[in-house]
C-alpha cells in the first residue's frame, strides 16, 4: 500500500490528494531537491544516496541525454556536447556572457537568449536547465511516491526578469508547476528560521564552487527585502583547490604533469582541503603515472596562508554591499553561511572578524538553500496550519511606472512593495478627440524617463473621441509572486483594453540596480526640480493649445487690440515654456490667466446666451 507521512493537525490529505511539494536549488555547479516530510525538511537522495546533482547535461549522438555525474564524466572527452554551468547563460544574450572565447561550446546568437549547437541540434539554456530540473523532479516523485503538486525554485537575488522568466520556463518544460521563485539568500535565511527572528539586517555569504555572492537582507514584519547584492562571478571553492594543487606541484618539485596526473592531483587537493576542515594537518601521498612521488604534509595554517588572498577577495564585495546599503558591519544582526567552501575554518574566521560576530554555520551550507525552498514550498502547497502562515518574502527592487506628458516617470508600484501586488491609476487624454494612447512602462527611481529603464511600450486604441481630460483610462500594474510584471490599460466606458507582459530580453545586473537606486537618491533634489519644470511646461502647453482653439472658434469676441494683447501673452508664455526656469513659466502662466480672463468670461456669456436662446425664463431650472 501507499506509504503515509505525518501531517500537521487537521491537515491530513484525502487519498490521492497529497500535496507533495519540493524545493529546488538550481545551482551553477550543483543542484539539489528537498522536501518537508513528517514535519522535517530534508534533502532527497538519488539511488546511490547522493544529494548533489552536478548541473551538467551531456547530449549524446544517439538522442539520449545524460545528466549529473554521468554527464560530468563526458566533459573531458566530449566538451562541445557537455554543457556545464548553464545557469550563466539563462536569459542572457551572447554579448552578456563573459569569457565566451574560452568556452568549448558552439554558440548561436539568437534574439533574447544565446543558444548552443549540440549533436542533438540547437539547444537553449532553458532546455538544458530543464534536463537538470526533470532529473530532480523524477527523483522527488520517486522519493515521495506521487506526482509533485509544485515546487519552489531558487534564483540568485540579482537575477533580473529575463533570467527569472527563463528559470520558470525551464521548470515548466521539465513538468514542474512552479509555486514561486525564491531568492537564494532569502531561502537560506528561511532555513535558519530568521523570519521569526528579530527584525533587522542580515548578511548572507554564499561561497559556492565557482561563484561568490554576498546579499544584505532586511527583515521587517516577516518580509525579507534584498537591500544590496554584490559578489565575484569567478571566485569559489575550485580556486582553493587550484591553489593547493599549485602548492603540491611546487613542493613536490613537479612541473608540467600529464592531464591524467593533473586531474588526480586536483582531486587529491580537493580531498585534502575538505579534510583540513576537521584535521589540523593532513598527509598528501600519491605516486604519479610519471613515476614522481608526492609525500608531503599540509598544516591547516599553511593552507590558510596560501589561500589567504582568495579569502581576502571576498572582503571587497562585502564592503561594497554594505556601502551600497548605507550600513556598517556592526549594523548586521546575523550572518548566514551558504556554499560548501564556507566550511573552511579560515573563511569562517575572516567573515566573523569582519562582522564582529560568529556566523551561522550549524546547517549544512550545501543544502541550506534547498531546505529553505522546501519549507516555503510546503507552506505554499497548503501543508501548514493557518496560524503558522508566513508572510510573503520578496519585494520589488525598483519602482515600476509609466511615462506621462513631458517625459516624466509616474511611479505606480513603489519599490520595496511586497509581491504579488497590483496597483491601478487612472489617466486621461491630453487632447480633444484623442482616440489612442501610448504607454511606456518604466523601471527606476528617477523622475525623468530618460534616467529610468524602459521595460516595454504598448498602445491602447479605440478610445471614443471626447474632450481632453474626459476619458478615464485605468492602468493596472500587476506583479506576480515571481516578480514578473504585466500592465493593462482599460478605457472605462467601452472596456477597450490593451495588455503587455514584460519580458525584457536583457535585464539589469545587480550592480546596475544598485547604481540606479543610488542615482535616485543622489539626484532626488535635481529630479524634484526637473519634475516641477516639466509639470509647468506641460501645463503651459495645455493652456496655449486650449486658448488657440478657442480663438479659432470665438476670436470675433475680441477687439483687434484685445486680440493683439492675448497673442502677445501667448507668445510670452511660449517663450517662457521653452526655457528651463520653472518659476518664470509659473509667473507667465499666472499673468496669462489674467490676460485671458476677459476672453474666457465672454466665451462663457456667449455659450450661456446660446443655451438660453429660444427658451422662456421659467423653463430654465437653476
Amino acid at each position, binding site marked *: *500500500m*501507499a*506509504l*503515509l*507521512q*505525518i*501531517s*500537521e*493537525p*487537521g*491537515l*491530513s490529505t*484525502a*487519498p*490521492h490528494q497529497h500535496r507533495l511539494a519540493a524545493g529546488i536549488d538550481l545551482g551553477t555547479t550543483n543542484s539539489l531537491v528537498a522536501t518537508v*516530510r*513528517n*514535519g*522535517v525538511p530534508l534533502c*532527497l*537522495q*538519488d*539511488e546511490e544516496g547522493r544529494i548533489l546533482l552536478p548541473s551538467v547535461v551531456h547530449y549524446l549522438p544517439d538522442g539520449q541525454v545524460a545528466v549529473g555525474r554521468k554527464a560530468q564524466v563526458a566533459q573531458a572527452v566530449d566538451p562541445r556536447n557537455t554543457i556545464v554551468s548553464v545557469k550563466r547563460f539563462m536569459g542572457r544574450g551572447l554579448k552578456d556572457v563573459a569569457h565566451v572565447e574560452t568556452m568549448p561550446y558552439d554558440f548561436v546568437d539568437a534574439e533574447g537568449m544565446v543558444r548552443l549547437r549540440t549533436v542533438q541540434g540547437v539547444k537553449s539554456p532553458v532546455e538544458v536547465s530543464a534536463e537538470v530540473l526533470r532529473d530532480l523532479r523524477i*527523483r522527488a516523485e*520517486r*522519493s*515521495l*511516491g506521487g506526482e509533485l503538486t509544485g515546487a519552489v525554485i531558487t534564483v540568485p537575488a540579482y537575477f533580473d526578469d529575463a533570467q527569472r522568466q527563463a528559470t520558470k520556463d525551464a521548470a515548466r518544460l521539465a513538468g514542474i508547476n512552479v509555486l514561486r521563485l525564491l531568492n537564494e539568500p532569502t531561502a537560506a535565511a528561511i532555513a535558519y528560521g530568521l523570519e521569526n527572528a528579530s527584525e533587522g539586517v542580515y548578511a548572507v555569504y554564499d561561497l559556492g564552487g565557482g561563484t561568490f555572492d554576498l546579499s544584505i537582507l532586511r527583515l521587517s514584519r516577516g518580509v525579507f527585502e534584498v537591500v544590496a547584492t554584490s559578489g565575484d562571478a569567478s571566485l569559489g571553492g575550485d580556486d582553493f583547490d587550484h591553489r593547493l594543487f599549485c602548492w603540491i606541484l611546487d613542493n613536490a618539485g613537479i612541473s608540467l604533469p600529464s592531464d591524467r596526473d593533473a586531474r588526480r592531483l586536483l582531486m587529491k587537493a580537493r580531498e585534502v582541503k575538505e579534510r583540513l576542515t576537521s584535521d589540523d594537518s593532513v598527509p598528501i601521498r600519491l605516486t604519479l603515472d610519471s613515476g614522481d612521488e608526492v609525500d608531503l604534509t599540509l598544516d591547516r595554517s599553511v593552507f590558510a596562508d596560501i589561500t589567504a588572498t582568495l579569502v581576502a577577495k571576498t572582503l571587497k564585495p562585502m564592503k561594497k554591499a554594505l556601502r551600497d546599503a548605507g550600513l556598517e558591519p556592526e549594523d548586521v544582526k546575523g550572518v548566514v553561511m551558504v556554499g560548501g567552501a564556507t566550511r573552511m575554518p579560515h573563511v569562517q574566521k575572516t567573515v566573523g572578524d569582519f562582522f564582529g560576530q560568529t556566523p551561522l554555520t550549524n546547517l549544512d551550507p550545501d543544502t541550506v538553500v534547498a531546505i529553505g525552498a522546501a519549507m516555503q514550498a510546503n507552506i505554499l502547497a497548503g501543508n501548514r496550519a493557518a496560524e503558522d502562515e508566513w508572510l510573503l518574502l520578496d519585494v520589488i527592487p525598483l519602482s515600476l511606472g509609466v511615462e506621462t506628458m513631458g517625459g516624466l516617470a509616474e511611479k505606480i508600484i513603489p519599490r520595496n512593495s511586497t509581491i504579488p501586488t497590483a496597483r491601478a491609476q487612472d489617466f486621461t487624454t491630453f487632447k480633444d478627440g484623442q482616440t489612442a494612447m501610448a504607454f511606456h512602462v518604466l523601471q527606476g527611481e528617477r523622475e525623468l524617463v530618460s534616467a529610468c529603464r524602459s521595460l516595454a511600450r504598448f498602445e491602447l486604441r479605440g478610445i471614443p473621441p471626447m474632450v481632453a481630460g474626459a476619458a478615464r483610462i485605468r492602468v493596472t500594474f500587476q506583479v506576480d509572486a515571481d516578480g514578473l510584471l504585466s500592465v493593462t490599460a482599460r478605457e472605462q466606458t467601452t472596456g477597450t483594453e490593451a495588455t503587455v507582459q514584460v519580458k525584457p530580453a536583457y535585464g539589469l545586473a545587480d550592480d546596475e540596480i544598485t547604481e540606479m537606486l543610488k542615482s535616485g537618491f543622489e539626484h532626488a533634489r535635481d529630479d524634484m526640480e526637473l519634475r516641477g519644470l516639466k509639470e509647468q511646461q506641460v501645463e503651459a502647453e495645455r493652456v496655449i493649445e486650449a486658448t488657440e482653439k478657442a480663438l479659432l472658434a470665438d476670436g470675433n469676441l475680441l477687439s483687434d487690440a484685445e486680440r493683439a494683447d492675448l497673442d502677445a501673452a501667448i507668445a510670452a508664455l511660449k517663450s517662457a515654456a521653452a526655457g528651463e526656469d520653472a518659476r518664470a513659466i509659473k509667473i507667465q502662466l499666472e499673468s496669462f490667466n489674467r490676460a485671458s480672463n476677459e476672453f474666457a468670461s465672454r466665451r462663457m456669456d456667449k455659450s450661456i446666451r446660446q443655451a438660453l436662446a429660444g427658451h422662456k425664463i421659467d423653463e430654465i431650472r437653476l
Partner: protein
Amino acid sequence: MAVTLSDKAAKHIGNFIDRRGKGVGIRLGVRTSGCSGMAYKLEFADEVLPEDVVFESHGLKVLIDPKSLPYMDGTELDFVREGLNEGFKFNNPNVKGECGCGESFTV
C-alpha cells in the same frame, strides 16, 4: 482494544516530534472518504481532546477518537522503506479490502 507502534515507527515518530519542536503525540484515525470507503488519518497532535482514547506505545502517546477506534483495533503502525520512498504503513487486521493503491480501505 489497542493500537500500537512498531519499534521503527516509534523511533521515527519520536524523532519527528523532537525536530518539530512541539506535540504531545500522534493522532490516528479514519475518515469516510477515498475510492474504497475509508481513509487513514495520521497527524501530529498538539493537544489531547477530552474524548480521545489514549494509548502509550514505546513511551509515545497515540491518540484516537472513539469513533475511529473500532475500525483500527489491533492495528500496528509501521515505518517502512520502499526504494527511494519511505513512510508509515498501517497493519490493520480489520481491513477486508483495499483500493488498488492501498490508500483507502473497507472493513
